């Protein structure tokens, strides 16, 4: 402690920023930040760190980190309001992307699938095909003031009812049943992954042979799944 003590607020932000970065704990991030600013570390000094400085710090330890993720970590350190860091939504009309499926990711940071279905800050909606992924919506699923809803989880699920697959970090059993009932397939990830990673995995599945339920969700007719049925017989 003593002269090296961080403010409680800054320590918290360093912890949160470290969580946003791959393979980084608070201690190692603190060490790296220590190389970016002169001691003692203060909130204003940390707020002045530039993206390139962080990227090149500690012999380029973060050079390979996705620039969006690094910016996100920096925004957390600088306490930039999260509303200001949301990516832009891209235009999409039905039919724009043949052979695609609409998915939604529960997130608290707009980068990772780290949200609990019933409490996450945003549902980010993507239209994904084998070679393209478009962010087509960001929904908060907050209940508007004055509106009385019987069941919060049903309300939240209804906000994403146009999506076929929902990725979450966690979801309760009864809520999952309500999600399934609305025709959405919930996927609980074993560990937190970035949205970009999950989309890349999904794209390789779509490009290969999607499982029958996914093919059905994508609207691929049974005839298009002929190969499956032949295999099933053989």
């Amino acid at each position: 402690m003593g002269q090296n003590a961080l403010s409680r607020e800054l320590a918290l932000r360093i912890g949160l920023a470290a969580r946003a970065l791959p393979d980084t704990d608070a201690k190692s991030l603190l060490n790296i930040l220590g190389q970016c600013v002169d001691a003692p570390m203060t909130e204003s000094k940390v707020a002045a760190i530039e993206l390139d400085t962080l990227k090149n710090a500690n012999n380029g330890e973060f050079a390979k980190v996705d620039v969006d993720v690094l910016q996100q970590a920096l925004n957390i350190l600088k306490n930039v309001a999260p509303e200001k860091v949301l990516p832009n939504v891209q235009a999409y009309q039905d039919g724009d992307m043949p052979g695609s499926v609409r998915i939604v990711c529960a997130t608290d940071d707009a980068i990772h699938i780290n949200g609990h279905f019933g409490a996450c800050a945003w549902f980010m909606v993507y239209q994904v095909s084998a070679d393209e992924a478009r962010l087509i919506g960001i929904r908060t699923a907050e209940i508007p003031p004055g509106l009385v809803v019987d069941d919060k989880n049903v309300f939240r699920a209804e906000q994403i009812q146009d999506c076929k697959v929902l990725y979450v970090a966690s979801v309760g059993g009864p809520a999952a049943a309500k999600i399934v009932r609305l025709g959405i397939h919930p996927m609980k990830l074993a560990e937190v992954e970035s949205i970009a990673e999950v989309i890349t995995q999904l794209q390789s599945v779509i490009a290969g042979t999607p499982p029958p339920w996914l093919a059905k969700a994508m609207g691929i007719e049974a005839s298009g799944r002929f190969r499956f049925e032949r295999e099933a017989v053989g």
Partner: protein
Amino acid sequence: MALYIVEADCISCGDCEPVCPTQSITEGAIVFKIDKRTCTECEGDFDVPQCVKVCPIDNCILPLEA
């Protein structure tokens, strides 16, 4: 008298396999499948078919038309 799994709906969760009293459910090449020669629809063991009871998807396990 047997049940079958609708291939287009099965998500391969595998929940049905261990609850089958006659071990009629196995994982097939694509999705899980029920051996119609041994499936009893749980008659004699349970009041309702156990696979239908645990399956998370509606109308995924249906009676095989005779």
